């Protein structure tokens, strides 16, 4: 529909929307101009640069209409299951039933960013003693108390054990306030002892078979509770069908990541890639629509990649990004500085790996839950980050700290050291608050310095202007990589078209 690819502002999106509409854009029921979300309070959009495709429009509208979708599900009599600290396991179970939807209440952590602190959620959390020394996920507490965002779920689950203390502590506060919670345990994933029966998990980690069996028994408890809540049997047949659908989402994301991160020039901005990946966690409250949104996005990325169209300069520095950012705008900053994200580990890479379909479904889900990078040793996580960074041809790694998060105090050093030692890549560790405007110059400087370090090492002259890309068509070229001295340099161009 559009030969050019650009990152555009909301103002530009107004015009772009009119153009698309004039050309007969077909939209789903939740469609419409992005501007309406600003009127509804999502004012951070005014400071973002977003992809200009119709597929991206659909993605943004899908993301920003989730609350409406949940309220509609409630009105339709569906059971709503809130799955706290659960990145992709219980939602697969819930969506296997036809009268239940699952959502991720922790996702409220982005509300202070998207609404630029006008939600009132953080002051509510403050008033309950959960101050800024906690991760921004504390916004979830405010959302429950105010009931101003998502509907109060019919059932709440929370995984605990080898999970962050922030959510465990905040969820306990919720329980203390009268919200019943089904706690289920995910133990710290350890490496099997010599001779101990072990299981390979999706993504490649190994775990003792006994730990998988334990998690499976925990998920059995969850299954019984979901059945009681929904009034339906969650049979293995239903679960297998649900897993197959979840894998459709994961396969789409796998292909999207392969092209989106691998093609040169970069066919889709990182902001849209990030949101697309987030859909894997709980399908943004509509699994079937998630599939359609991702299919649209993938079609657009394929079109761009095959035509050599991109949104960034072909020589943009390839950066592997670790952890999600509390402020979406920071992803724009990286691209403004001359970088592109070529791979990511947003704390839920296990939700992107295919769930085994040749196993009993509960066994498969247990393995997937234990494959969570955050429940194992950070050394294991660092290992996977190195592996993926190498696979995606990264030239640098950014570790984004989440303010107050219990895992961020010590993990950055472990991951950073592993990347430097294993790949020889430069690493920058930054901390991103929900609204980063006040520290934007410092963040920009850090990211620019990282980009310049890579460019200097390349020995090439680099233009950091994104203007290079606007409306132009690039031919993907292997020349981008020639003469570089990075360990993973030959990988840089693989997967390009």
């Amino acid at each position: 529909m559009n030969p050019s690819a650009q990152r555009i502002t909301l103002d530009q999106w107004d015009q772009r929307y009119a153009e698309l509409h004039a050309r007969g854009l077909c939209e789903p029921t939740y469609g419409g101009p992005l501007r309406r979300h600003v009127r509804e309070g999502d004012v951070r959009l005014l400071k973002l640069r977003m992809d200009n495709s119709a597929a991206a429009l659909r993605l943004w509208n899908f993301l920003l209409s989730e609350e409406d979708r949940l309220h509609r599900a409630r009105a339709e009599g569906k059971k709503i299951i809130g799955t706290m600290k659960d990145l992709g396991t219980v939602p697969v179970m819930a969506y296997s039933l036809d009268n239940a939807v699952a959502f991720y209440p922790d996702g409220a952590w982005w509300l202070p960013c998207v609404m630029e602190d006008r939600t009132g959620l953080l002051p509510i959390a403050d008033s309950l003693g959960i101050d800024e020394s906690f991760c921004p996920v504390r916004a979830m507490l405010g959302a429950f108390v105010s009931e101003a965002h998502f509907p109060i779920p019919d059932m709440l689950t929370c995984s605990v054990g080898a999970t962050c203390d922030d959510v465990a502590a905040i969820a306990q506060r919720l329980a203390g306030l009268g919200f019943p919670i089904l706690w289920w345990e995910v133990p710290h994933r350890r490496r099997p002892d010599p001779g101990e029966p072990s299981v390979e998990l999706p993504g490649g980690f190994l775990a003792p078979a006994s730990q998988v069996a334990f998690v499976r028994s925990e998920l059995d408890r969850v299954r019984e509770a979901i059945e009681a809540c929904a009034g339906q049997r969650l049979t293995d047949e239903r679960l297998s069908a649900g897993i197959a659908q979840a894998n459709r989402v994961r396969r789409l994301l796998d292909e999207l990541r392969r092209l989106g991160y691998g093609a040169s020039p970069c066919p889709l901005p990182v902001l849209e890639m990030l949101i697309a990946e987030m859909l894997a966690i709980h399908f943004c409250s509509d699994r079937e629509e998630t599939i359609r949104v991702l299919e649209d996005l993938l079609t657009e990325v394929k079109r761009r990649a095959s035509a050599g169209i991109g949104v960034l300069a072909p020589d943009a520095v390839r950066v592997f990004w670790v952890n999600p950012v509390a402020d979406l705008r920071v992803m724009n900053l990286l691209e403004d500085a001359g970088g592109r994200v070529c791979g990511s580990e947003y704390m839920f890479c296990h939700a992107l790996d295919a769930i085994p379909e040749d196993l009993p479904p509960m066994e498969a889900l247990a393995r997937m839950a234990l494959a969570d990078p955050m429940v194992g040793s950070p050394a294991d996580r660092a290992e996977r980050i190195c592996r993926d960074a190498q696979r995606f041809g990264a030239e640098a790694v950014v570790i984004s700290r989440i303010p107050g998060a219990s895992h961020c105090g010590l993990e950055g050093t472990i991951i950073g050291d592993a990347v430097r030692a294993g790949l020889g890549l430069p690493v920058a560790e930054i901390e991103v608050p929900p609204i980063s405007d006040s520290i934007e110059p410092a963040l920009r400087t850090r990211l620019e310095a990282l980009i310049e370090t890579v460019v200097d090492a390349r020995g090439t002259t680099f233009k950091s202007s994104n203007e290079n890309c606007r409306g132009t068509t690039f031919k993907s070229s292997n020349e981008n990589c020639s003469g570089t001295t990075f360990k993973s340099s030959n990988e840089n161009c693989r997967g390009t078209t």
Partner: protein
Amino acid sequence: MNTVVYCSPFVPAEWIAAHGMRPSWLRPRSAAGRPRAGAARGVCPYAGAMVDTVLSGIEAAAVVLTTTCDQMRYAAATLERQGSLPVFLMNVPRTWETAAARDLYRDELRRLGRFLVRLGGKEPSPEELACAMLRYDDARVRRVGQAQRSPTEEDAPGLGGTALRLSHPTTALPQQERIPLALIGGPLAEEDSGLFDLIERAGGCVVLDATEGGERTLPAPFDPERTRTHPLEELVDAYFGSIPDVFRRPNDRLYQWLGEQIAARGVRGILFRRYLWCDLWHAELHRLRQWSPVPVLDFDAVGEEDSAMARTVGRLEAFLEMLQ
């Protein structure tokens, strides 16, 4: 005899001792002259000091840490990467209402046992385990019964070196004139050794030590008969089945225990001590204040800080004046 250090009350000292090792409760201290993990933003001062202490060199054969707090989990990984001592990270389930969680804890004890054997320990027979359990149980009973104690007794056998503290007068103020207080929170560090004296000088008296390593985290007394017939099961129930703690989900039993003890000891005020960046205790402060039948004073520990002690003293004195 090899020493095995630990700093969680969910690591049974008698289990280590029964394997022929010397259990020692690690009281972390801030190490000078080396990079300080605790100085990093977001790192709990206690977890950071623990890392610093172990990395600075301690006389031990191994370190045993638990998953009862997320930062300790990451501290274990840091020590595995940077340190030279073997590190054992023990899974202690946060849920406790299912048989599966209890069994997981028991299996982790067995795994710890195999680790100790690899270190040169010896797998105990049921009789040897029962004997060690009863010896430690007896020592705990005697210690709890003491009205006074000397600080040098902290590492006495029988408690596995746990930091059980009971009030001991250091001022001329008669016991009955001091204000009975409960001290609630996480574990105490080496720098906190003067805290009890400080409280007493201000006119208070800790009659309930509910910190980690204090009497709150003592296991339930062992049943002698079951100890003889099923020692490991009794050990599991006494520790996993009875210790109330903030990390457990749900953690209502912590409040139940506190409520009983506050009433029984005539506590008139609660000193709530938490570390900066400790989410688990910090999140409970507001709830505790709403729940508590007596006033609560919050004082946070931020690690080494010149003004911290003066601030603590000032707040403590004001609190006790209010309680007069």
